[in-house]
């Protein structure tokens, strides 16, 4: 247990110390929120869908959590050959504990980052339907973070070097973001696109947050929760298995 805690604490310390990175990582969500939010706003309004900033904010929060958590897992690659990973792998501690400590740390950082973006969204004019249900949205953030921190570890453990990084970015992370319905409503999509959005775990995360923050949903909050919980468990198990296979 103490090993899990100390590795979690390490992620927290690294996060709070990298102030420049915290600010830098707000850039992309801000761009989506402000430029898309206000740029597409009039069109969205004319289409009878209401306020686009309201609509896109949960998507932008979901995106932040997705990126932050998946990068924490991919950070393994860096740690692997240059850093700290070896130190933990020769320690007399079970690998699964090391993996859990790291993953929980990465997930916590992702949630903190998500909260930060939530604050930014509120400043930009986003208003949740009910303040009382906001903690439930936090639960969804935590689920999204766990799903993708697990996926990040699974992918990070399987890659040999940074060259695969672009591949993962362009063929896994970005598609998951764009197909999640973070930027557009999932109703009435062409069949192929609808199918793609259905297998994207982030769709359920964004939909879950929307159903809580805006009281509008495509699936249903319960379905969203169930799908995310199952996927989180599957990815954590796969991540732990891949992590246990790392050779250095």
């Amino acid at each position, binding site marked *: 247990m103490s090993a899990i805690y100390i590795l979690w604490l390490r992620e927290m310390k*690294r996060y709070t*110390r990298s102030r420049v990175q915290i600010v830098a990582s707000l850039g992309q969500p801000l761009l989506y929120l402000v430029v898309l939010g206000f740029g597409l706003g009039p069109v969205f309004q004319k289409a009878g869908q209401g306020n686009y900033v309201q609509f896109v904010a949960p998507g932008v929060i979901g995106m932040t959590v997705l990126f932050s958590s998946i990068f924490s897992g991919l950070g393994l690659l860096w740690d692997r*050959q*240059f*850093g*700290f990973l070896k*130190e933990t*792998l*020769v320690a007399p501690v079970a690998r699964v504990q090391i993996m859990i400590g790291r993953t929980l740390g990465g997930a916590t950082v992702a949630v903190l980052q998500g909260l930060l973006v939530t604050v930014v969204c509120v400043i930009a004019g986003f208003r949740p339907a009910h303040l009382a249900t906001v903690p439930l949205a936090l639960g969804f953030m935590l689920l999204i973070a766990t799903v993708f921190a697990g996926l990040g570890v699974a992918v990070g453990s399987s890659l040999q070097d*940074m060259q695969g990084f672009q591949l993962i970015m362009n063929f896994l992370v970005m598609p998951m973001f764009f197909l999640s319905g973070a930027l557009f409503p999932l109703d009435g999509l062409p069949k192929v696109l609808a199918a793609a959005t259905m297998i994207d775990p982030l769709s359920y995360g964004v939909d879950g947050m929307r159903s809580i923050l805006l009281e509008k949903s495509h699936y249903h909050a319960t379905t969203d929760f169930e799908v995310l919980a199952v996927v989180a468990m599957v990815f954590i198990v796969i991540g732990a298995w891949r992590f246990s296979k790392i050779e250095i």
Partner: protein
Amino acid sequence: MIRVQNLVKTFGTFTAVNDVSFDVAEGEIFAFLGPNGAGKTTTIKMLTTLLKPTSGSIELDGLNPEAKQNEVRRRFGIVFQDPSLDGDLTAEENMEIHGVLYHVPHKLRRQRTEELLKQFELWDRRKDQVKKFSGGMKRRLEIARGFLHTPKILFLDEPTLGLDPQSRNQLWSHVKKVNEAEKVTVFLTTHYMDEADRVAHRVGVIDHGKLVAQGTPQEIKDQTKTETLEDAFLALTGSTIRDESAGSADQMRQFAKMWQGGKK
């Protein structure tokens, strides 16, 4: 303390370590020498539970690393070729994480950390982030960290790579001191023959996966009728250059250099 018998490791059709046997006594400093790609790091990886041998047996303090992985891990400390510190954390925090991972009780952890950081002349900088340290300081910290859980054996894989002569001398005098004070067995690899000559009680020379000579530095010199250990080494291993193909680790190393260069 270390007993290796008929150790073999093959990767596909390539035999990295071929029928190697040696013993290292308690409290001894043993230098493992060999050209690039001779099988040094592969041997260290097998000794430190990171790789499984294809055949042969290893005993560390009487234990088989494969069967008693965690117990063996508690008994040794290791300093890798590449740095394995967390640069964002302070020297003290790096020590703390190590202590927790090696189950060193809180009080003892504090006490050992202070002792070792003072001994390795890092105590004044304990609150500084490791990324602000010089190469020599980082190495010293890694070695101090390796000693934290009072291991019986310390493995040093090319610990002086890239250090200036001052740092190298200082590093070895620290290692010698702890070796004498705590009776720690030291197993090291290096490309600097003069270091091995000065520091090691005994050396083993490996080439193409085979152990070609072992004994005290003097014995090796006598055996090859040479004046210095470097000449003896060249006499034993020939003078052809071994070009290792650049593995992903080397590529990453270059990438990191570029990256760090860019930051500065």
